[in-house]
């Protein structure tokens, strides 16, 4: 999967350090992702996964080192990125439909296209019945799904996903996993996907990056050499299960 992309890296981190005050959160991160790669980030709670994503997004600046997205400073590459935050971050005064339309609205898309795209994505996350609700009327999982739909309305070249499915039931989660892979196959964006599920990481990615904690460092990068086409059947296969065990173990060892 790495080979099918051209060799210019889409995202590149070199000697990246991040400190908050005195404490070093990320230490010497060197990593690059080519176009179309699907990278999962796993690691103990508080090890710096969200911070890393925010650095790639240009929301946090680096204390040391360099981050480049599509050859640019991340701040200039915002148009090519979409971010699903760990919290849903919905605007409390907007209904589900308007919340989902927001990024397109900010980009000045026509109302028509906006409404349509938002509807489509809300359907994908099974929220067609809740278009007119306000965030406080939603369950935690529903809020997260709105946030997912919102990010998917954009057609990004880099997608940053921070535990998007943590609050969802297995079935919805599996369905969304497959949807995500389908869209990815079509649009070939580069994904950074934070998850706590080894199974999910293996199912989705071509590379799993294992971070250790205190400070966050890359402890291992596991290449997932599974067929490009992935479906429910794959989950039963032993190759898959071996990878899951491998990732699981890797996570346990960094603790």
């Amino acid at each position, binding site marked *: 999967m790495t080979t099918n992309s051209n060799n210019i890296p889409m995202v590149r981190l070199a000697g990246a350090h991040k400190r908050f005050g005195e404490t070093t959160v990320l230490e010497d991160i060197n990593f690059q992702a080519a176009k179309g790669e699907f990278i999962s980030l796993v690691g103990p709670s508080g090890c710096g996964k969200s911070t890393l994503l925010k650095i790639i997004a240009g*929301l946090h600046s680096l204390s040391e080192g360099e981050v480049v997205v599509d050859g640019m400073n991340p701040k200039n590459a915002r148009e090519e990125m979409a971010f699903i935050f760990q919290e849903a971050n919905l605007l409390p005064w907007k209904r589900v439909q308007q919340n989902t339309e927001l990024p397109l609205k900010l*980009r000045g898309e026509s109302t028509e296209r906006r409404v349509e795209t938002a509807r489509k994505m809300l359907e994908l996350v099974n929220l067609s019945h809740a278009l007119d609700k*306000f965030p406080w009327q939603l369950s935690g999982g529903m809020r997260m799904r709105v946030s997912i739909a919102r990010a998917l309305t954009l057609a990004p070249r880099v997608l940053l996903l921070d535990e998007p499915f943590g609050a969802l039931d297995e079935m919805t989660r599996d369905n969304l996993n497959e949807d995500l892979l389908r869209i990815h196959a079509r649009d070939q964006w580069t994904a950074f996907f934070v998850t706590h599920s080894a199974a999910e990481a293996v199912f989705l990615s071509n590379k799993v990056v294992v971070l250790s904690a205190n400070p966050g460092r890359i402890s291992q990068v596991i290449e997932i050499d599974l067929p490009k086409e992935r479906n429910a059947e794959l989950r039963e296969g032993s190759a898959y299960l071996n990878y899951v065990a491998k990732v699981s173990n890797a996570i346990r060892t960094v603790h």
Partner: protein
Amino acid sequence: MASTSKKIQSALLPITSGAIILAVWYLISYWYGRSVGYDVQRIIIPFPHQITSALWSEREVLWQSTRQTALSALIGFVAAVSVGYALSMLLASAVWVKKALYPWVLVLQMTPVVVLAPIFVLWMGQGLPSITAITFMIGFFPVVANTTMGLVSTDRNLLDLFEMSNATKAQEILHLRVPYAMPYFLTGMKIAGTLAPIGAISGDLFAGSSQGGVGGIGYMVILYNSQLKIPELFATALVACMLGFVFVGCVNWLHWYLLKDWHDSARKVENT
């Protein structure tokens, strides 16, 4: 049914407390009158019924001056709210704007009206424009202070969301900071609403005139005061209060209307 009795109850409360206040008032007036004589009591703490009968007998004059003051108060209020709002957005638009302008906004607020009044009168002449300008001066700062505070209190996470969407500063203010600051802004507006009639009355004191035989409420205040028509003075104050209630009532309605869908201050609690 429960809700009807609740409604009655909630109407009874201010009435009851009003009755208590009235009773205390009567007691104090009565006690004061007994010790110094009722002629003196009348011009120091008139009985409530003396005030209402003064209100009735002066109704025509008061009605005319109230109309005049209401107009200045309304224009001043609208100006204070809209200019204050615009100014807050300007101040929030960039740190350097705030650094450069905020101190001077404060200076404007803190300059005693007695210093500014002659300048206003000189530029705008005696009457409505000057009174309005003074009303504006008195009411605009609470709007600015509150709205600015609301605009800078915006949740970091939502700001991140907007940054990721490549939102322009204008979009960020319009679509995020402004609605986020709405509860603050409305509170500022409520304060401005209570200040507007007071501002118009002060404006009247400095820049009003009796053109056409009637002055505004401020003019009547001095008049009654200098003639020691104290029940009439209190009646005038009552009218000023009622004017204020109209403003505050409108703001409260706006508060409910704008925030009912999402903000805890206006949302009816679902449970219990």
